[in-house]
C-alpha cells in the first residue's frame, strides 16, 4: 500500500477478485459476501476502501474479526447473516435494519434474519464512528 487516502484506496478496492469492482459499484450499494470476509491484517484501509468505493453496507455469511471491528469503527455497517449468499442475487434491491439485523429483499419479496449490531455499537455509529464517539465523551 502506497497511500491511505480514501479516494486512492477506492480505486484498488477488491481488485484481486474483480478489477472492475470500483466502476461497477453503485454509490449506496450493498456487498453480499461469503465466509470470512475481510480476512487478514489490522489495516483499516480495507473497510475505508469499500466505503470510499460507495458501499453503504456489507452483508456476509461471516466476517473476519478485525475487519468487523474496523468496519463499524469507521461507520461502515456490517451485518452477519448465515445463508445470505443463496438468498440474494446480483442487482436485488435490499433494505437493511441495523438494530434488528433484518434484511428485506424487496426484489424477491423475502426477509432474511441477520445478527443485529449490539446497541452500544449502534450508538457509536450514530455518533459518526469511534473517534466522534470518543470526542463526545471527553
Amino acid at each position, binding site marked *: 500500500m*502506497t*497511500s*491511505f487516502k480514501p479516494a486512492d484506496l477506492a480505486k484498488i478496492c477488491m481488485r*484481486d477478485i474483480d478489477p472492475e469492482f470500483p466502476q461497477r459499484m453503485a454509490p449506496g450499494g450493498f456487498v453480499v459476501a461469503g*465466509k*470470512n470476509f475481510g*480476512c*487478514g*491484517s*489490522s*489495516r*483499516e484501509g480495507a473497510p475505508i476502501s469499500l466505503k470510499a468505493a460507495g458501499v453503504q453496507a456489507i452483508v456476509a455469511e*461471516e466476517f*473476519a*474479526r*478485525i475487519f468487523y*471491528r*474496523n468496519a463499524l*469503527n*469507521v461507520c461502515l455497517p456490517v451485518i452477519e447473516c448465515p445463508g445470505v449468499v443463496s438468498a440474494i442475487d446480483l442487482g436485488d434491491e435490499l433494505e437493511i435494519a441495523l438494530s434488528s439485523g433484518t434484511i428485506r429483499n424487496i426484489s424477491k419479496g423475502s426477509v432474511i434474519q441477520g445478527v443485529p449490531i*449490539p446497541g*452500544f455499537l449502534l450508538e457509536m455509529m450514530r455518533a459518526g*464512528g*469511534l*473517534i466522534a464517539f*470518543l*470526542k463526545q465523551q*471527553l
Partner: protein
Amino acid sequence: MNIAQQARQQEGREEMTLVEKILARAAGREKVRPGEIVYANVDVAMTQDILGALAFPAFRELGIPVWDRDKIVMIIDHCAPPSTLLQAGYVVENIRFAEDYGIRHFYKMQGVCHQILPEEGFVKPGAVIVGTDSHTTTYGALGAFSTGIGSTEMVWVFAKGNLWLRVPETIRVEINGQLPPVVMAKDVMLKILSLIGTNGANYKALEYGGQTVQNMSMDGRLTLCNMAVEAGAKNGIVEVDEITRSYLKNRAQGEMELLKSDPDANYSRVLQLDVNNLDPQVACPHSPANVAPIGEVIGQKVDQVLIGTCTGGRLEDFRMAARLIQGKRISRNVRCLIIPASARIYLRMLEEGLLKVFAEAGCVISNPQCGPCGGISHGLLGDGEVCVSTSNRNFMGRMGSTKAKVYLASPATAAAAAVAGVLTDPREIEGGR
C-alpha cells in the same frame, strides 16, 4: 455441558478457561461467559510504525495526554530503515509522537514488534495486550491475552486505557507426541490450519496444550500463537509453566498472575493432533490453510527464500537453518534472505557463528526488521517469481507482484529449498537427518 459442570453452574461455581479468567479480571468481574461483551482494561498497548502513524494524528486532534505513557510501547519495524519518502514520513511521525507524549518505551529499528515485546519483558502472564498489528496474538505464548486492533481503536485505547471485547469461545488444541527431527512448531501450526481453515477459529481463542506443547521451547510457542490469527482467532494462548517462568526470568518483573484453565472449563471444540509422524508441511499459494505435506510439492522451482519475520526469525529458527546450510552454497538460482527478528537475536547469531555460516553460503543478511513479508521492503517479488518463506501469510500480492507465488514453510524446509533451488524434503539434506 456435562452433569458436573451443570451442578457447578447452579452453585455459581462455573469453571472458566484461561482466556475467560484473564478477561474477567481485566473487566473487574468475578466471571465472564463467551459471547458477553466487556470493557477490559489494557495492560500494554503496542503500535508499529505504519498503523501507529495512522493513529497519531487522530489522537493529537483530541488534545489530551495518553492514559498511561508507561503502558505504551512504540516500535519502528516495518520501515526499518525507510525505503520511500512515504515510509520516511511514518518514521518522522513516530519519533515526533514519542517525543511529544513522553513515550519512553520506543524501539527504533531494533527488530519486529512481536519479538521485542516478549524479549524486553513487556509481556506478562495474565496481561491484556492490544497492538495495531494482527500478529499481536503472538504474546499468548507467555499466557497473556493479546490481540490485534485497528488504528482508530488504538486512538480509543490511548485515551481511555480500555477496549470493548466480546469474550471468545475457546478451542482447545491438544497436541501430543514427539516431533520428528527437523519438524518444527511451524509445521504443527500449518497442519492445524489445514484441519480448521482460515476461519476455523474466527472470533475464538485458540488454547494450545498437550505433551508436545509442554515440551516446546518458547520460540516454538511464539510461532504457534503468532499464526493463531491465520485461523481467524482473536488470540492464541499457552498456559504458564516452567518454560514460561524460565523465559521470564531476568525479563519481566513485578506481580504476575499464573492462571490456568479449570479442568472442566467449557471448550467450544477440542482438536486432537498426534505429531509423532508429522511430515514437514508447506502452505501453497495463496492461502495459509492451503497446506500439503512436503512430499506433494517437491521439485517446485524457487527464486527467493526468506528466513526471518515474527513467525520464523528467532534464534531456534536460525540454528535449524544453519544446520542445513552449513558447509554448502546457496543454489545459484536462489537468493536467500536472512532477517533476524530482533537485534538481540542478531547478536546471538553473531556470537554463535550463525551469521558466518549464512554469509559463507552466499545468503543476503539484513538488519532486524519485518522485511518483505508484508510487501514493504528488502526483497519484494517480481512477476512470476516463487518464494519460500518462514512468514505467516501468502495472500496474493502480499510480498510484491500479484503474479508471484509464496509457499510458507518452516525454517528447515526453507533452508533446504535455498540449498537445492527447489522445494525439497529437509530430511533429505545433510544436517537434516
